[in-house]
């Protein structure tokens, strides 16, 4: 960026040159003006803001070094030379509820409505490694996602959907290798070889210990499982995104934007280090790492966050890890609008929140987007509300024109300054994490958990004391609410699903399943890649719960140090 004369200077008094009289006049007028109350001098993340940004704020930026052109290192302005002109973002609504058959109907509905990718939401038992008929699954089956315990469930989930043509994202972590194994086996039964599969597995265990809190084994064996998956996929499922390194849940747990950025990228670097330590060449697996961020309400802060994320990843991958393949340098990401920003009060207002958040994600250059439905703060969304959420993306894509110009906010004094500050804030966190000896020791020390809890409590207090206005919650309150009809998942779904799982177990060759499980355990005890054994287990009809439980004697069970 061409250096220009400082015309606005800084309200903090850091002038790089003599202020022009226009700047002095503005400053005097600003200082004299009455100000509105409330937290308008900082972002929603408590990041300090000036009232005005100018050339001096962008003065340190070297265009080629810090921004460059879209598709070029360090990718601040985007990873594709053609931006959204070459290809729109993927409209991918996260969906799953009840049993596999019900969710399959929802998928077909969404595809018929113009959705361009699938995203599977699993229920809590599947996410935690329990079959639907396990006592700990009582009351949870099909409630916050689809119930998947067996290969049959997975086959029913994708019935009539050609896995060779669609890309599928699966939000699953500690049981991710089981889900991947079932997906590969389902595709094979459809006649689609694993080499042709495209999609994403979340499989980001580090953020589970930090924020989402779904786990079976402790962090160390979880990293082993993930590196086995990465190694397997880089050879056999080359189009698969092996991990979706996720900031979404960190933000939902209450972090600031900088914490989301820093903790997510620190997790990403930890996976790269683990892959390299396992003997993989960084360029063999880094191109398949993908990311997942939150789209929160502070519009410019979010855009700066996405831009900073691309730049930080590129710099670390090239400079620190010595990656040679430009695809290893590019940070590709999915975005979901912030569930935690939605309100139960006047829930229709969530439609507007989602639209602005989605706009921020698109201006930040997302590759894929989920827009939340207005009712998700109370239940899983109804078909009608999902359709409205999807239409929000379509209006954005086809009517507003925001995708016509690449990185349209690039060069904004404010956005560039904030992008730089986001990067600096993240680097400070990387240094603090390094002092613990890395991400896993910092998890054991409760560092991330404490940082997030502090931030979420500060934010809540700002709402409580009225410094921050949440429309319909602490201002513009309305006594009478318009009733909203919600999706109900009945108890009969659970009973029916339990019966299906039991029938599945009764119909199989139990010895073959037991032998496959024994081979998996043996691989876990030794050093063999576990992934082929996971696939063999699901093909021999071992269930998700059985596979998960079989490894507990080898790996142990994680217990969180509960801190408030």
């Amino acid at each position, binding site marked *: 960026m061409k250096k220009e004369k400082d015309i606005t200077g800084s309200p903090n008094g850091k002038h790089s040159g003599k202020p022009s009289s226009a700047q002095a006049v503005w400053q005097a007028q600003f200082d004299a003006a009455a100000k509105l109350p409330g937290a308008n001098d900082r972002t929603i993340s408590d990041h300090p803001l000036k009232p005005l940004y100018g050339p001096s704020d962008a003065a340190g930026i070297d265009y080629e070094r810090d921004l460059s052109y879209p598709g070029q290192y360090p990718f601040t302005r985007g990873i594709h030379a053609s931006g959204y002109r070459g290809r729109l973002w993927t409209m991918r609504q996260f969906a799953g509820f009840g049993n596999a058959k019900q969710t399959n109907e929802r998928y077909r509905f969404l595809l018929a409505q113009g959705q361009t990718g699938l995203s599977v939401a699993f229920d*809590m*038992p599947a*996410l*935690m490694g*329990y079959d639907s008929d396990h006592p*700990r*699954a*009582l*009351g*949870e089956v099909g*409630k*916050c996602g689809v119930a998947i315990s067996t290969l049959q469930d997975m086959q029913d989930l994708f019935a009539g959907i050609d896995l060779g043509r669609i890309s599928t994202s699966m939000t699953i972590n500690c049981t991710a290798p089981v889900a991947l194994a079932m997906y590969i086996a389902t595709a094979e039964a459809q006649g689609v070889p694993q080499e042709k599969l495209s999609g994403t597995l979340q499989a980001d265990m580090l953020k*589970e210990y930090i924020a*989402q*809190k*779904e786990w079976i084994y402790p962090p160390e064996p979880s990293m082993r499982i993930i590196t086995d998956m990465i190694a397997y996929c880089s050879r056999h499922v080359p189009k698969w995104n092996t991990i979706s390194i996720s900031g979404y849940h960190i933000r*939902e*747990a*209450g972090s600031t934007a900088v914490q989301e950025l820093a903790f997510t990228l620190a997790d990403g670097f930890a996976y790269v280090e683990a892959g390299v330590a396992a003997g993989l060449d960084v360029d063999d697996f880094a191109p398949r790492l993908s990311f997942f961020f939150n789209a929160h309400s502070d519009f410019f802060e979010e855009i700066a966050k996405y831009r900073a994320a691309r730049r930080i990843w590129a710099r670390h991958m090239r400079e620190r890890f010595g990656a040679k393949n430009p695809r290893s340098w590019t940070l590709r990401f999915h975005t979901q609008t912030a569930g*935690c920003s*939605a*309100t*139960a*009060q006047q829930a229709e207002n969530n439609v507007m929140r989602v639209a602005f958040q989605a706009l921020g994600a698109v201006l930040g250059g997302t590759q894929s987007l989920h827009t939340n439905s207005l009712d998700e*703060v*109370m*239940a*899983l969304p109804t078909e009608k509300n999902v359709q409205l959420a999807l239409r929000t993306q379509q209006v954005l894509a086809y009517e507003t024109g925001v995708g016509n110009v690449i990185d349209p906010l690039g060069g904004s004094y404010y956005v560039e300054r904030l992008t730089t500050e986001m990067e600096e804030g993240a680097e400070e966190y990387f240094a603090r994490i390094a002092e613990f000896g890395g991400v896993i020791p910092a998890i054991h020390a409760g560092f991330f958990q404490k940082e997030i*809890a502090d931030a*979420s*409590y500060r934010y*809540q207090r700002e709402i*409580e004391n009225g410094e921050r206005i*949440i429309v*319909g*919650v*602490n201002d513009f309150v309305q006594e009478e609410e318009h*009733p909203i009809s*919600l999706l109900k*998942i009945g108890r009969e779904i659970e009973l029916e699903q339990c019966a299906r799982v039991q029938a599945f177990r009764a119909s199989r060759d139990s010895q073959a399943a037991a032998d496959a499980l024994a081979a998996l355990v043996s691989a876990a005890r030794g050093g063999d890649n576990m992934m082929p054994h996971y696939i063999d287990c699901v093909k021999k009809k071992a269930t998700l719960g059985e596979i998960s439980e079989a490894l507990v004697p080898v790996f142990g069970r994680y217990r*969180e140090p*509960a801190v*408030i």
Partner: protein
Amino acid sequence: MARPIRILVAKAGLDGHDRGAKVIARALRDAGFEVIYTGLHQTPEQVVEAAIQEDVDGIGLSVLSGAHMTLFPRIKELLDKDGASDVVLFGGGTIPNEDIEALREAGVAAVFTPGAPIAGIVDFVRRECGKRVEV
């Protein structure tokens, strides 16, 4: 001087969403109550056992996984069975209005949904759980 009100903030079932539980735990502590947090993934039996051992005046249960219609009634049932019917059971989470009515009928004293002001929750605890302190 009366002893401080004691509250067990609980997470039951497989749900890992602990943001709300932690915010409430801190807010109740800041309001002068004694707060015990169960940690994640507790069974209803573990929650009630902890409540009785710690002799709490109230249990604040947080459920965001949709399993509220199973977990709340089960905890209430165990409290009654173990002679701890006077422990006030309340809670919050992603819970639809029509379920709230059913939960209240099942003996849950109050259900707070996302966006509920903390001040209101503190007032509720002081008023309802305070009754047990005075007795």
